[in-house]
Each structure stands twice: as structure tokens, then as C-alpha cells.
């Protein structure tokens, strides 16, 4: 009798649990160790709340990912509840996302105000900042020491150092050695790299916040021409088809002196199985000449909730949990994902695992934004034209003067911007 009763009790409990438990789907990235960390935190939330969450992996290439999101959201599908979106997308996807303000209970005050502002479109908070990104220069401490070089302050110094070490190492037997690897494929990553070159030479930001098309200026031409000289000399020609992971592949296997990448590469380079463990240093990207500045492109990913989700409230709760200080700290310590809350940059554990986060705090807070606000729904077209023009110059099919002149005319035709 007793067993029978308890069985009934259990069955009722299970049924009740079943009735409340919802199935959510989250799309989170899979660059480097991202996916593992996402799965881990999602599982914790699922266990805590008794719901089931499936992790969907969208493509690594951010253009592909955006295209997929737009297809899914455009058809009003409830296939994905929580989406990981790029810092330049809130404007593009605004009409498909839920206002998260009612669910956050005021936690948005703990984040960097600039990030909350970026994610607020028309008074609605469309996404919570999950981690922020800025382009950084990775370098091989051991190799610079071996050749008695100081970390470079300008691009020209960087190129000279890269050449010196590359030649030296090749003569010593490693014929796979390259000076500098970065993102040169015709995609959004090239826009980020090139925006950094422009800013470092004080060459503007393609289209200025006031709507003026500024790309055709002598400093910008100098910046792009300078980068084109790297291809085939200190960077392999194949860099023209490299994304983040291809560049990391070369650097982490010990075959590059310098690399431009986002912070995530730090945690992977420091793993036990990494051939360059303990030999890597990080600094701000070099200046464009003595009068230039250190510029890092602003990246970073946000969590948003789809308007078509059947469980928007739960989905918002998951997004709030994943972007909470606790989860962000874990991700910073084990994955080098930069927190989006100022308080975490003072956290001892975070700084111990990622010393650069404290040293380079100003780089993160003063990162250069891509012109996504001023171009709004046309950002993708502008970025596409910009990376294609840049790619043409890098691959030697056009001079920077011609390519940027044509781009300037084309962007002006596409306007007015404001």
C-alpha cells in the first residue's frame, strides 16, 4: 500500500514537472571553446529551473550566422528562443526581438552604459551584453626576446620586427614561420581589421556618425596601402582567405610571431596542450605612425530573445542568467571572455587568469565602433562594399586610391546617411 501511494505521488510529481517544464532552444557560438562554456552554463540553468534547453550551433562565420538568423526570424519561426547576436546587429534585427526591460529587474545598470545604449533601439532593450571584444595584438614573447626586440608601438615597427624574426627563424630551419597573421577573408572580420587600421592612422570610420562619407582620405589610403604590403612578405598570401580560427591555427601551432585576434584566443593559447603556452604576450594594436593611436575594433556578443518564442518569459530568464555576473566571471576565468560589467574588471580571479584585462582596460573601453548606427539597416551592404574594396587592394587587384575613390562614390550614391 505504501509503495503504491509513493508511486502515485511520484507519478503526480513527474506529471506536474512535465507540465511546467518547457523546451527552449538557444543559439550560441562555437568559435574556440565557446560552445563548451555555453553548454555548461545552459545545463546549470536547466537543472536549476527544471526546464530543458537545447543548444543549437549556428555557423562560425558571422555573415553566415546573420543570414541564418534573418531567415529563421523572417519566417516568424519559433525554432530558436535565445540568440547570440553581434554588437552590430541590434538595429538590423530590431523588429524580431523582445524588449527585455520588464525581465531584467534593473540589472542593466551593472553593465557598461555604452553597451546597454548600443543594444537599446527605440527605447527598447533588445539584448543583454554577454561578452565584449576588442582587437588585440598577440605576440611571441620568447621570439622577441631571442631577437632582442621590444614590443612594437607602430605598424611599421611591427612589420620590421616581424620580418626580422621571420627571416631569422626560417634561416634556423622553421620554413613555415610567418611574421603576422590576421583576418583577410572577404567577410565581416576584414571590416573589423580594416576599421582598426583606419582608426590607428586617424583615417576616419568609413561613414562618420554625422552621416559624412569619409573613406576617401589620404590617411585611410595610407593605412590600407600599408596593410597590402604585408601580404606575401610578413603574412602568407593565404591570409586573404583567413578568418579568426585560421589565424589562430597558424599562431597557436607556433608558426607566427604576431597575430591580430579577439581575446578568446588567449585562453586557448594558454591551455596545456598549446605549443605556445607561456610564450604569448598581448598588447594593444600598434599605432599608425607617430601621430596615430592604438585602435581596437569594438566587437562582442549579446543575448537576445526572439519575438516568436513561445516561452519568451523563460527565454528572457535564461538570457538574464547567462549574462549575470556569476556566469560572466566563470567565462572570463576559463575562456578569457571579456566581461561586460565594470565591476568584474576589478575581480581578483578574473585578473589572475587574464592579466591583460586589467592592463588593457582602456583599450576595451575606448574601442572603435563600426559604422552600424549611422547606416542602420544598410550596415551589411556598407560593410560588404568596404571589405570588398579592401580585399581588392590587399590582393593587388587595385590601388587604395582607386578602390577607396570608387567606394566613396558608391557609398555616397547609397546615402544620404542622416
Amino acid at each position: 500500500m505504501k509503495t503504491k501511494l509513493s508511486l502515485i505521488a511520484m507519478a503526480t510529481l513527474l506529471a506536474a514537472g512535465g507540465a511546467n517544464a518547457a523546451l527552449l532552444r538557444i543559439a550560441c557560438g562555437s568559435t574556440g571553446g565557446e560552445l563548451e562554456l555555453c553548454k555548461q552554463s545552459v545545463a546549470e540553468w536547466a537543472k536549476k529551473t527544471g526546464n530543458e534547453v537545447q543548444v543549437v550551433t549556428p555557423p562560425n562565420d558571422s555573415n553566415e550566422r546573420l543570414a541564418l538568423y534573418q531567415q529563421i526570424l523572417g519566417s516568424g519561426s519559433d525554432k530558436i528562443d535565445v540568440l547570440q547576436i553581434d554588437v552590430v546587429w541590434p538595429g538590423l534585427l530590431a523588429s524580431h526581438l523582445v524588449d527585455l526591460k520588464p525581465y531584467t529587474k534593473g540589472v542593466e545598470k551593472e553593465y557598461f552604459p555604452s553597451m546597454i545604449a548600443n543594444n537599446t533601439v527605440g527605447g527598447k532593450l533588445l539584448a543583454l551584453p554577454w561578452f565584449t571584444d576588442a582587437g588585440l595584438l598577440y605576440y611571441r614573447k620568447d621570439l622577441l626576446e631571442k631577437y632582442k626586440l621590444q614590443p612594437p608601438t607602430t605598424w611599421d615597427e611591427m612589420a620590421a620586427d616581424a620580418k626580422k624574426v621571420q627571416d631569422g627563424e626560417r634561416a634556423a630551419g622553421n620554413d613555415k614561420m610567418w611574421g603576422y597573421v590576421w583576418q583577410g577573408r572577404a567577410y565581416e572580420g576584414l571590416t573589423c581589421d580594416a576599421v582598426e587600421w583606419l582608426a590607428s592612422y586617424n583615417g576616419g570610420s568609413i561613414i562618420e556618425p554625422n552621416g559624412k562619407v569619409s573613406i576617401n582620405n589620404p590617411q585611410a589610403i595610407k593605412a590600407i596601402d600599408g596593410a597590402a604590403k604585408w601580404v606575401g612578405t610578413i603574412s602568407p598570401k593565404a591570409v586573404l582567405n583567413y578568418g579568426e580560427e585560421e589565424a589562430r591555427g597558424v599562431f597557436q601551432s607556433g608558426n607566427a610571431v604576431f597575430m591580430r585576434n579577439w581575446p578568446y584566443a588567449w585562453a586557448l593559447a594558454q591551455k596545456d596542450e598549446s605549443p605556445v603556452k607561456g610564450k604569448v604576450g598581448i598588447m594593444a594594436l600598434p599605432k599608425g605612425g607617430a601621430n596615430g593611436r592604438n585602435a581596437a575594433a569594438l566587437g562582442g556578443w549579446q543575448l537576445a530573445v526572439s519575438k516568436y518564442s513561445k516561452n519568451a518569459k523563460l527565454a528572457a530568464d535564461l538570457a538574464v542568467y547567462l549574462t549575470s555576473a556569476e556566469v560572466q566571471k566563470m567565462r572570463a576565468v576559463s575562456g578569457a571572455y571579456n566581461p561586460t560589467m565594470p565591476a568584474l574588471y576589478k575581480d581578483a580571479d578574473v585578473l589572475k587568469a587574464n592579466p591583460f584585462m586589467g592592463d588593457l582596460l582602456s583599450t576595451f573601453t575606448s574601442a572603435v565602433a563600426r559604422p552600424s548606427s549611422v547606416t542602420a539597416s544598410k550596415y551589411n551592404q556598407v560593410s560588404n562594399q568596404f571589405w570588398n574594396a579592401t580585399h581588392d587592394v590587399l590582393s593587388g587587384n587595385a590601388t587604395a586610391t582607386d578602390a577607396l575613390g570608387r567606394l566613396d562614390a558608391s557609398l555616397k550614391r547609397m546615402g544620404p546617411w542622416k
Partner: protein
Amino acid sequence: MDDSLIARARRRQAYWLVLPVIIVLAAIAGWPLLRTIWFSLTNAQLSDMGNSQFIGLANYIGEAGVLRDGEWWNSVRNTLFFAVISVILETLLGLGVALLLNTPSRIQALLRAAVLVPWAIPTVVSAKMWSWMLNDQFGVVNAMLQNLHIISSPLAFTADPHLSFPTIIMVDVWKTTPFMALLILAALQLVPEDCYEAAHMDGVPRWRIFRYITLPLIMPGILVAMIFRTLDALRVFDLIYVMTSNSHVTKSMSVYVREQLIDFQQVGYGSASATLLFLIIAISTLIYMAGTRSRMEAN
């Protein structure tokens, strides 16, 4: 009188029999095509499909129309170039492979199966596979060429603007030669054995046998195979997109259309370019059919 009645009844029956096919074709090919043509006359955006206006032919011939976009003409040039070169290479290699496969051998069946492997692999998979094999740092192709001292430093097959197009054509040829070989082999096996016997009796040299017996008899088969391949090549997408992404050195018409439709969300403009793509393929087919009509019907 009776005859014509029966004939009429038969004709009616024939119409009924093909009706299901016509309905299915209209639903899965006709309707989407008409919709695309309709969208091409509007300024529809993917993010906001409800709010579109009729704008006539502006997407085609307007100030910012497809026909005035240098990028579109670049992709048309790329596609035509790709189609002509790859189909010629595939036909020649396919013919060679088919002739080899047609000679009796103990392992003929095995060879026939083996040769089909590249064709059986999905394009996305083989494109990704080749991307890795051709990778400049870790790729096996560069390693082999370097070990054989053919090249001194690794080549950037998919990144170098001078190499990326030949690379794409090479992978396409690798993948679709089996298809050509198979169709040509089918044609070869239909050539009556007695023609060869008679020629052997008369002591005709092998080259002349091939030139005057084999080739004319398999020509209709080759031409049909070529048109299949040409149609395929003109709408090439996956191979180029996987191997070189959006790079405009290798951009094909389909890549251009997808970029406008998906990346830029311009359903109207993208549909206009899709309609042009359709017209270009239709016209190429008609020209090809007209040019080869007599030969295709030779059999």
C-alpha cells in the same frame, strides 16, 4: 470517322495522363518563378515583406538597377567563363575515362564504381575537403608539391586571386568528370558491335574507327550530357561559396543573387537578378539546342 474519334479520345486520355505532372510542375516550378518575377517588380525587403510597392522595371534598368551594376556583370562573366572551361574539360576527360572503362577488363565493375565516388560525395563536403587539402599551412597538396620540389613555398590556392578561379574549376572537374564519363559510357555501350567488326575486317586504323564510327554514334549522348552540365555550371553556387565565400574574384551569378536576397535583404532587387539569371540560362539553352539540333537528332 471512327478512327478520328478514337484518336481524339486517345489524345484526351493523354492530356489526362500528363495533367498530374503539369500540376506538380506548375506548383513547384511555375508558381515560385512567377512569384520571383512579381517580386522583381517591387521594392520588397526581407525584413518587412508586407510593405512593398510596385516600382516597375526600376530594379532592372533604373539608376541603381541590376543591369547597371558592375558587380553583376562581373559575376555574369565569371559564371560564363566557369561554365565554358569546366564543361569542356569535363567532356574531354569524361570521354577519356569512358573509353577506358569501356574496354573489357576483369575489374571493370570495380573501376566503374570507384570512378563514381567523387560524384557521390555532396558538393559541400567535397568543397570543404578540398579546402583543407589545399590549405596553405596544413594542406596535403602543398606538402606534396613542396616535397617534390615543384614549388618552393606553399601556394594560397583559394586566396590568391590568380589561383582561386583555376582551383575552383579544378575541383569542379574532379567532381563532375564521373558524371560525364557515366553518360558517355552509356552511349558507348549502345554502339553496335558489328560496326567495329566490319571495320576490323577492313583493317581500319583505331584512330579512324574512333573518328568515323564511335564519335558520330555517341555524339548525341555527349551533347545531352554537355547540356546537363552546362545548365548545372551556369547556376553554380555551393562549390564557390564554400571555397572562396563572398570574394568577388570568383563570385558567380547565384552567389550574387544570394548576397542580395539574404545578406542585403533586398527581395525586390535580388529577385530581379534571379530573374535575369533564369533568362540567361534559358537563352543559353535555346542557343545550344538550336546549334546542336541536327546532331542531337542524328540518331
